[in-house]
């Protein structure tokens, strides 16, 4: 189950965080997303290590925590998408697909002329669209 998706701006500022847990504990997800930026930073700053990944937007599994997984995605404007899931066996292709759709939704959201770049995304449509994407996560592979 995806428990959190987030958009982080190029200055590592949170632009959008949506949690999908029932409990009122979004703060811990903020923490997870925030800490995962350490890994993103490292990947971005160490192109040597990431090697062929350099030109790829999908950063893959950021770090293996025992009970959840954090995936990252980096757009070419240095905006990061973070996905936190409690599914322990997730296929990379699914995550890639998720991020592609999420990216499209993000691009649509920030193309709104009333959106101020660098500010938080407040669009309700975006929230709805993200929820749809999250709900359909993994379904394509199953079906």
């Amino acid at each position, binding site marked *: 189950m995806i428990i959190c998706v987030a958009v982080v701006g190029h*200055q*590592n*500022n*949170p632009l959008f*965080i949506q949690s999908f847990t*029932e*409990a*009122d*504990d*979004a*703060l*811990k*997800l*903020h*923490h*997870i997303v*925030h*800490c995962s*930026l*350490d*890994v993103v930073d*490292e990947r971005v700053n*160490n192109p*040597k*290590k990431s090697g062929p990944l350099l030109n790829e937007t999908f950063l893959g599994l950021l*770090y*293996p*925590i*025992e*009970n*959840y997984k954090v995936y990252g995605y980096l757009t070419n404007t240095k905006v990061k998408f973070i996905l936190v899931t*409690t599914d322990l066996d997730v296929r990379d292709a699914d995550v890639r697909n998720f991020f592609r759709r999420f990216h499209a939704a993000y691009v649509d959201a920030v193309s709104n002329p009333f959106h101020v770049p*660098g*500010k*938080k995304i407040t669009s309700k449509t975006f929230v709805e669209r993200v929820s749809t994407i999250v709900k359909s996560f993994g379904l394509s592979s199953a079906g």
Partner: protein
Amino acid sequence: MANFLAQFQTIKTTADRIVISVEDVSDLWPTVKNAFEARLPFKRASLNNKTRNPVSVEQLPAEFILTTDSRLRSRFPQEQLLFWFREPYATVVLVTCEDLDEFKTILKPRLKLIVQNDEKEWFIVFVSKAHPANDQANKMAKKVYSKLEVEFSSKKRERCCKYDIHFPEANFWDDLESKIMECVRNTLDRRVQFYEDEIRKLSEQRLMPVWNFCNFFILKESLAFMFEMAHLHEDALREYDELELCYLETVNMTGKQRHFGGADHGDDQAALLNPGNKALTQIVQEDSFREFEFRQYLFACTSKLLFKLNRPFEVASRGYSFIISFSKSLASYERILPFCMREVWVITACLALIEATISHYNEGHVVPDIEKEFFRLLGDLYSLARVKFMRLAYLVGYGTDIERSPVNSASLSLLPWPKPAIWPSVPADASAEVLEKEKLILQTTPRTKHFGIQRKPLPLEPTVLLREANRRRASLSAGNVFEMFEGRQGTIEGSQAQKLHATSMPRTNSSPGNVDSSIDRPMRLAEIYVASEHALKQSISNPELLKSLSSSEEFEQKYLELTKGAADNYHRSWWKRHGVVLDGEIAAVAFKHGHFDQAAKSYEKVCALYAGEGWQDLLAEVLPNLAECQKILNDQAGYLLSCVRLLSLDEGLFLTKERQAVQSEVVRLAHSEMKDPVPLDVSSLITFSGNPGPPLELCDRDPGTLSVTVWSGFPDDITLDSISLTLTPTHNADEGVKALKSSTATVLHPGRNTITLDLPPQKPGSYVLGVLTGQIGQLRFRSHSFSKVGPADSDDFMSYEKPAKPILKVAKPRALVDLEAAVSSALLINEHQWVGILIRPINYSLKAAVLHIDTGPGLEIEDSHVIEMESCASVSQNDDEQVQRDVAQIGSLNSGKSFERLTLHDGRIEFPNWASDTPSILWVLIRAVSDTLSRGSSSVTTRRESIVDGMRTIALKLEFGVFHNQIFERTLAVHFTYPFYVRTRVTDKSNDGTFLLQVILHSEVKAKLTIYDAWLDLQDGFVHTGQTEGRPDSSDFPLNISPTSKAGILFSICLGKTNTEEESRKQAESVLNIKYGISGDRTIGAHPPVIDESTRVDGARQELIFRSAIILQRPVLDPCLAVGFLPLPSDGLRVGQLVKMQWRVERLKDWDKTEVSEPNGEVLYEVNANSGNWMIAGRKRGHVSLSTKQGARIIISILCMPLVAGYVRPPILGLPDVDEANISCKPAGPHLVCVLPPALSSSFCIPVNS
């Protein structure tokens, strides 16, 4: 083959180096042993790895063993094959012989026998015992050796070498080593080949039922072990890796239910670095090994090799993944393992791994990237151990000691509870402990945050422990009463516990000792804690870990140790976010123990981290803690700053009540007795901007009021004692900033406020807003931030750029108003006249302007009269002012022509409001005073009048602008004149001395003049001829004279006698009296003078008197001197050509001695000429000598140049000292000369047709 496992293990422990067997044929070993063994271990050995590539081994340990040694003799052939790795890798045959015959007969056959075994890699060392002095012996030894070489060496391979006991050859040892190495290499290759073949054979059967992993393992590990003995660690490592892969495959593949292992005492302590923890024979499970122990064993072997390869980093990295994956395996077998075995194992594994890797780690030996990665792994290990440790502590009941922070919540609430088959139940004799735990639970009160901030604590548990534990108990199945808690997942454990506590309390009271009942009824939280504690005591074998869980103090110590370890290592790995967040956890503990200083430092770091990247939600969690620390530490500046930062966070993050509490803290502190004023940056809380729209535009030197929009982020109104705002000029920075101050208290409402500030005059230029400073009590705050559109946005942390929009523009100095005289033509002198002053504002309001009027000499203002002011719509003169004219016209259309009477007070006039924007004319009644009489002139002489004569000045000073700060000064020149200028001319002259005097009146004003009467008071020597007393025919009057036209009046007069001496003196000149009236408009020029209202008679015509003096010249009756104008050159005069003018002066009579005016026969002359027509070169005035005798004559020459063409009057020679009556002129009257235009110059002409 599996039976050999035990043997294999013992062999492995005994054999740890390669063996070189020594075949001591001639009993030489005791003599050479020391020398040989001194070469061990071999340096720079060259071996082949598994892929047959040469590898250089730095040190290769080996052992020489005699073939007769029991270790080599007592082996069965089958054993030898299986454990081939321990067999000798080379055989050294030691021989000596001093006789050829002996060699042939004895030694050679024996050697042949030894070396016939193909399996062995051998070579012969011929030891020469011959003394170097003994040539005979040496020769013999050489001979024998050469025989030996012939017999045993081949072209392909040299198998012999010679060792001189007394004098070893220099290269012998190298030779020996290379030979040994060759043998070892060959043997190794052969054995690797053998093992590989065997392994392949077994691998092919892997899917068959006969497959036995143990056999495979023995072969594979033998190979690995052989590589390890040969110091080919990389190859050994590879074998182990393959072994692990293969093992995992068998584990996962077979459907057989195997024992997992881990049920033994002490298994909870990870043995992932200790390969000898358990004998392999103990963990054999049918045809394979138990997973629990075997995987740890494999990892231990690999880590041992990695440490040998000096790669502790890889141990850490492999270890971390191993722990994670192994923990997963443990989770799947959790039901059969002891309670919390998984957590305990992970903790011990992490700690063991950390300890081992750090002890093997040498700082600075690796590239920084790997080093960073290493520390990161250590951090990960620490943090993993920390999480598991916290989980155990929670189960034991130390949950209240764990900070419910995001980091702890993130790791604990996503970590599922342990899933034992049956949740441990309370032991029989534990009721006392249960009571104690219950007491603890009741005692703990949730810590309230500073400022009364109410936050729902973050969960530390994935689900409610109470329900989870009870559900997993044997006697209770799903669907019991605890399902009622399903809907309350979010509620925390504590509150849940209390609720439950209340319901179950009566039962406990009734049967405190009846522990058995707990099987039937659900366990209470305290019971769960106690049960867990007891179960953990069973499963934990590590005394240190047990101790750490024994009390809350011990727990805290361990917790701190782990947290610090994680934080430090994360910091060293540059994972600052991980590190700093954990610092915050340390700070929480420090805070609890009253180490506020340390806590504040750490909290500050955490806050800076969150604030720097705008993670407000997280910041809101930590900042109150920091504020509390600072408050306790009495760090007022820091505390205030924290309060401000709290207030400037997103409004939604706190309740209004909480925000108000913070604000009241700020205000309370600000007004408390602080020693020094505390500076505070409130940029995030109070922002400001200029008003939207164009900037305020001011003229130079104008003050103004600047209105600024200020957004307040305070939740309530806040009173600022003073406020000041700096303006920064945009054009030059060195001018410095100007501060605008408002010392009155300002109340800022939440949200948008508009503040107006007085703006003193500024230098020209444009200005932007600088810094807002102010004071609240003792608090000096300043704000640098500018809000552009809306209220300060919370994530504005990156927009600190200055606003480009200027707020104020001060124009360069320019004319703001213009004052000029409204009329250009002359006014009447000595009469009351209106003088018009045109006041024209130039895009500037003259509201409440004050005009100071000061008249110059010869001019006076009539105080008694009012001053009239009227608007003047169409006075604009050029296109630039088109707009203004339009505006003025619109104004005039709307309001019509404004007119107002004003009064003058002390020379000041205040302007009415309507005159502030439109041009207006101010009419001031004045009178120019002149006590001289107008003088007429004869038609002969030119009119000699200076323009200055009629000129009067009015000094004007206009004070205007909002604060009368603008001053405009101007001196106006007003021209005054008499109405007429009089010229006389004798038109006709009869012989009887009667002549007609024509008086020509030139009108000097732009007004119609009407002459009602005129008379002439004649001077002495003239009398009127008729009886009309000098008046002309009355029928001519009234006579109208149009502006600038002329009129003439004829008077008939004759020369008369002198009446009396007195009268003649009185009347030296004639006076023309004219009674006239004027009808003019003051807007044009001269007009009827204003008379006092009181004396005015309606309908009466206003008659004015004009008097002008006329000098009548009597004919020359007794000429003494004659002046004659000599003829000019015949070719005429031309403009620009010099011409000589000559006059001849001749004395007609002898000098009369009675005249004193002409001394010494000198005559004063003076040349008068119209300077517009003539240029005179030479002296215009001077004395010339002229004899006093009659007939004396002289010629006066003057060089002149005509300046204009036409008929002009030539210069006239006058003799000022001589009475005009005594000079006879020729020509007698004025005459004209013709001046031709200048000759054409053709030099610049270009012919048209060329």
